[in-house]
């Protein structure tokens, strides 16, 4: 029961902050509400016994990506963006598309009243030490994907520097 109460609390925080992110005028406020959503999602990882991902979420998302976002929000001119209308011209089309998405997701989750129909849960215990299990998986079964991901980060870093550079020599 305490698990359910924690889950409901974290879900409300995540969803309310997410709605605030997409409705605020000021991009700085949006960024701060996004931090709330990211923290709540981190709490949900913790609730699911994914301790390593919780740490990654806090360090990388809240600590890294959000600082990057706030930097860029401060670099571009907020006053100009504040005076303009919040929503794009095509908001009616967007509304219909979103309704369609809700209908499709609802249909998939409802599934003629049978719910999700997940396959049977495997027997046996979950790995007790989450960080150890994730680390072994990353460096044994997922060795090549991990290397490709590190290469992707390098390319993204070089790309970001080249994009933001004033003039290319």
């Amino acid at each position, binding site marked *: 029961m305490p*698990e359910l109460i924690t*889950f409901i609390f974290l*879900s409300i925080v*995540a*969803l309310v902050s997410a709605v605030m*992110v*997409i409705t*605020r005028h000021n*991009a700085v406020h949006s*960024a701060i509400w*996004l931090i709330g*959503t*990211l923290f709540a*999602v981190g709490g*949900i*990882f913790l609730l699911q016994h*994914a301790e390593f*991902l919780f740490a*990654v*979420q806090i360090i*990388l*998302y809240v600590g890294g*990506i959000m600082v*990057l*976002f706030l930097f860029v*929000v401060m670099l*571009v001119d907020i006053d*100009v*963006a504040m005076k*303009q209308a919040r*929503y*794009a011209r095509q*908001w009616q*089309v967007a*509304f219909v*598309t979103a309704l369609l998405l809700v209908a499709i*997701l609802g249909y998939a989750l409802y599934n003629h009243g049978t*719910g*999700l129909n997940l396959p049977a849960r*495997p027997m*046996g*215990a979950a790995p007790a030490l*989450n960080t150890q*299990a*994730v680390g072994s*998986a*990353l460096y044994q*079964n*997922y060795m090549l994907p991990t290397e490709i*991901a590190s290469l*992707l*980060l390098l*390319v*993204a*870093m070089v790309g*970001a*520097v080249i*994009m*933001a550079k*004033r003039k290319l020599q």
Partner: protein
Amino acid sequence: MMHTEYYIFLSSALFTIGVIGVLTRRNVLIILMSIELILNAVNINLVALSQYFKSVDGQVFAIFVITDAAAEAAVGLGLIIALFRNKETVNADEIDLLKW
């Protein structure tokens, strides 16, 4: 043990909010933030199902998604800086250089 369905409902709701943000907002920065919301919704889904199947594979995929999110944020924000320098705007409606 809680129902995995609850997590998937939460993930769908967060995904939908992110999609609405991408489709309706004008500010490019907030469109990028909505993409982060979508990626977080995907991560909730991956972690919930990884817990359900008692395997860490889903969590490893969530780590790759976070890596992609970091790369996407770095390149996207670099693009926004370059765009703001050239066009003095972060409004998605005014970015129409390829339109005629």
